[in-house]
């Protein structure tokens, strides 16, 4: 009579007593199929112990960094000792701009529309601070320092306008998707989203005002671009939330809502 698979499994991982193991060994000496099962289970255990660590994609840290910087803009700092409980139990916070796998499992129409919009953003690499060099290399024979400065300023303004147009297009597309499906959200969540969007819109207005008074200011340029990214992140979350609601995935939706509320606080 063959031992059960459970017993052979226990033998393979060494959890039988010595006398139980001796009985199994006696059986294995005469039974090819049981020996085969034990060998395969041991292969799996061996391979499992050889598994290596995986390196996370390089995009992860910049997203965390950005989320922390947003926290800081809201005045949040790491909690000091004694300010929190001893247990590090967690809730489902969301990271702005994260490409949620849960949001990837989306209804086809929304996914396709969002992909088209986001493709505009993915191709965009606006880096405040590199423009002076670029402008300089474009016009190495500028004879006048003033002319060079003017040229650089114009190049910056031109690139910034281009970047702004790309972000605004992306935001417009996402807003259309989100607005068309607003009915899928409960009124309280919709209100939270509107409140968060209003805060970001205000920040965008302030960045624009700062740029009007100081067009060459790198911090002002960076701030405007960062605010655009934040708005895109929030709109992405909105589309993901709508998808989860329509799929009836309350847990997934609750996680996103939790993140939205956290961002809004």
């Amino acid at each position, binding site marked *: 009579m063959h031992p059960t698979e459970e017993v052979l499994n226990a033998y393979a991982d060494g959890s039988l007593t010595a006398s139980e193991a001796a009985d199994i060994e006696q059986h294995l000496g005469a039974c090819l199929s049981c020996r085969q099962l034990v060998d395969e289970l041991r292969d*799996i255990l061996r391979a499992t112990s050889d598994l290596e660590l*995986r390196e996370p994609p390089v995009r992860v840290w910049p997203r965390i960094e950005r989320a922390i910087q947003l926290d800081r803009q809201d005045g949040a700092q790491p909690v000091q000792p004694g300010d929190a409980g001893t247990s*590090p139990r967690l809730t489902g916070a969301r990271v702005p701009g994260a490409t949620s796998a849960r949001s990837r499992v989306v209804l086809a129409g929304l996914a396709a529309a969002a992909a088209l919009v986001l493709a505009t953003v993915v191709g965009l690499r606006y880096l405040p601070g590199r423009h002076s060099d670029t402008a300089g290399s474009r016009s190495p024979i500028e004879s006048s320092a003033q002319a060079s400065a003017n040229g650089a300023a114009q190049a910056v303004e031109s690139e910034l306008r281009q970047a702004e147009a790309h972000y605004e297009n992306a935001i417009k597309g996402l807003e259309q998707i989100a607005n068309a499906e607003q009915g899928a959200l409960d009124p309280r969540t919709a209100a939270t989203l509107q409140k968060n969007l209003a805060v970001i819109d205000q920040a965008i207005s302030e960045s624009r005002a700062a740029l009007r008074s100081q067009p060459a200011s790198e911090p002002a340029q960076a701030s405007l671009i960062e605010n655009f990214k934040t708005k895109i992140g929030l709109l992405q979350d909105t589309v993901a939330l709508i998808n989860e609601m329509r799929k009836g995935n309350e847990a997934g939706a609750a996680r996103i809502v939790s993140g939205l509320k956290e961002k809004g606080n």
Partner: protein
Amino acid sequence: MDLVARVRAGDLDAFETLYREHAARLYTLACRMAGSPEDGEDLLQEIFLQAYRKLGSFKGDASIGTWLYRLALNHCLDYVRSRRAKMNKLTETLDAESSFEPTARRETPIARMDLERAVERLPEGCREAFVLHDVEGFDHREVADLLGIAEGTSKSQVFKARMKLRGFLRGQR
């Protein structure tokens, strides 16, 4: 000043150093617990953001690595619990599909990537038990506590996972 103190003082470079030291281990855990690199990536981001916000609860009784690991594990467990109800149906389907008739034994060593992919294919429930017991090294009592199941259930889930892996890996010969 140690890394934790520097982070508490607002030094983001220090937090990045913490991230670089521990991200691979926590990402690996998250990928395996969640069953996909995409979910693992999301979880990793959430874990480190929470770690930044909750650093005040780190008392220094254990190492910062241990604290981060516990935080990550809690986060992964919360995630798989919230997903479990939704996945029950799929688990039943996979259970029905997975009967293993004896076939020729694979003669080649198991490739790491094959095993990683096979672990990702394990059904909810037995995957977490397998990862915690066979990969992370918790004993069955600890696995039972972490997952909120009986110790006997942990044993049977790990057994089920190994048998399913055997079937998956045979299919990749």
